[in-house]
């Protein structure tokens, strides 16, 4: 056995995977993702789009399937992608690999979405995520590897979806997957043991990274608070972000409430601004009008 193998799997477009146990057939369309734990392909089954995850590392598939099954226990909301099938298939004459099939979410990663549509989306997306994290925490698990790349915004519904379940960890265990920038351990602000505050830290860090100025400086410092202060666009949320980074929110709901307070304040401010702006705009028009008329009259009389 070669142990330095890469877990990615190469499948050809149009290739068909036939499940050995459940006999379903999947026609590969194209590769949509590749990571340290395997490859994800867009495929069709009976003219329906699905996503197929396949890996050289069989334990990755078992683990993620276990996680997806566990998420089904949450009935209130759909956490993670919906699991459709689990099977093995021959990817060529000699090689048999396990895979699982999930719903295909046609979406844009949070970082690209906000870059395109603007910072006004930051609050609604964060609130949606906190709502989902709350339910996940309720059943005793943390998401773990929370980062903008793992958050897909569905193109149709504009709903934030957590797509990668590889980092989901039971409370009290060691976080099994993380990315340095979003990991509180890396910033010296806490342990790598799974608790709700771990996710809230990662979410706060993800919010911060939406400010291009903060993102571009992120590797230059190990003080995340100094980093936060560098970005002007984060000013309205800085207080909440800071509290989350410090681990002061014990529940996702607390953080969600704090964010919605900001949202209401923002709206109120905007409304007030509008009220103030409109009349002064009119006054200016009238005054310019008056000045012009006076000038015209003077001119008329002089002539």
């Amino acid at each position, binding site marked *: 056995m*070669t*142990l*330095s193998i890469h877990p990615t799997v190469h499948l050809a477009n149009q290739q068909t995977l036939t499940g050995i*146990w459940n006999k379903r057939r999947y026609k590969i369309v194209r590769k949509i993702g590749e990571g*340290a734990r395997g490859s994800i392909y867009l495929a069709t089954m009976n003219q329906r789009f699905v996503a197929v995850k396949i890996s050289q*590392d*069989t*334990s990755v598939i*078992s*683990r993620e*399937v*276990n996680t997806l*099954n566990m998420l089904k226990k949450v009935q209130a909301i759909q956490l993670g992608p919906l699991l459709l099938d*689990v*099977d*093995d298939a021959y990817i060529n004459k000699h090689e*048999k690999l*396990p895979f699982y099939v999930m719903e295909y979410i046609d979406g844009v990663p949070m970082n690209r979405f906000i870059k395109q549509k603007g910072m006004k989306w930051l609050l609604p997306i964060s609130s949606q995520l906190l709502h989902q994290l709350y339910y996940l925490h309720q059943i005793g698990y943390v998401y773990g590897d929370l980062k903008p790349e793992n958050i897909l915004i569905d193109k149709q519904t504009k709903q934030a979806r957590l797509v990668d379940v590889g980092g989901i960890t039971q409370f*009290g*265990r*060691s*976080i*099994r997957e993380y990315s*340095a920038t979003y990991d509180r*351990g*890396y910033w010296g602000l806490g*342990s*790598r*043991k*799974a608790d709700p505050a771990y996710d809230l830290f990662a979410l706060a860090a993800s919010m911060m990274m939406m400010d291009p100025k903060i993102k571009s400086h992120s590797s230059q410092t190990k003080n995340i608070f100094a980093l936060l202060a560098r970005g002007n666009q984060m000013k309205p949320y800085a207080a909440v972000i800071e509290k989350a980074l410090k681990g002061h929110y014990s529940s996702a709901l607390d953080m969600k409430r704090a964010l919605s307070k900001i949202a209401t304040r923002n709206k109120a401010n905007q409304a007030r601004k509008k009220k103030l702006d409109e009349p002064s705009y009119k006054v200016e028009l009238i005054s310019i009008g008056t000045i012009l008329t006076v000038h015209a009259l003077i001119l008329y009389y002089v002539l």
Partner: protein
Amino acid sequence: MDTGTIKQILLITDGCSNQGEDPIEVSHAIAKKGISINVIGVLEDDQSEDPLGLREVNEIAQAGKGISRIVYADLLSETVQAVTQQAMTQTIQSFVSKELKEIFGKNTDEEDLPPETRGEVHRVIEDLGESAHLQVLILVDTSASMQHKMEAVKDALDDFILSLQARTGQHSYSIYQFPARNQVVKELLPWTSDGKSVAKVFPKLAAGGITPTGAALKQAVRAFQTVPALEEWSDEGDDAVDTSYGSSS
């Protein structure tokens, strides 16, 4: 089911051994004693991936029933954690599949089970991985070419200890360097589970000299006291001490 202690050696190096015994043979012998050897090869920034000199990295790990990765210094942190985790799962997995064979017959592999059953097996493997006692001996190559990578090694080990501390199960680690003044290997930190010790050790990690990887592995493995029959290892080749350190002993 008792998995006892999972023993691993983590070797961080940047290339070929050039003195003493064949590290692949040593590694093979160590694996037979129930200790797996994971190797991380650190690349130069301008090096292409998989250069010839680092082929040994994969071979040592393969002989040592461990995992190997070849990475640039800035990816070291994530790699140390991933490699250890993966190697541990693998050790438990091979243990579990032995059990499976006992229950279901000689030719049963995990892959022969239907996916649902496999999920159950995996849950057991995972629980064991989280709760087993993990003992890791970290062996750092401090030869001259590693000098400018030491900062990255330190960060990676700091980070690794943080992950160890988060585990439910017990852990202990020790740190050795090679080569050292008048010695093949030098103990920098005896077995401990204290997370703060790494920082104290690192100023001592002076780099220099030759790379006697095989001999270093052979000597370092003695730190696992429970390993039987160390006496049968010949001492020949252990004296691959770098003469460039002078003879002021």
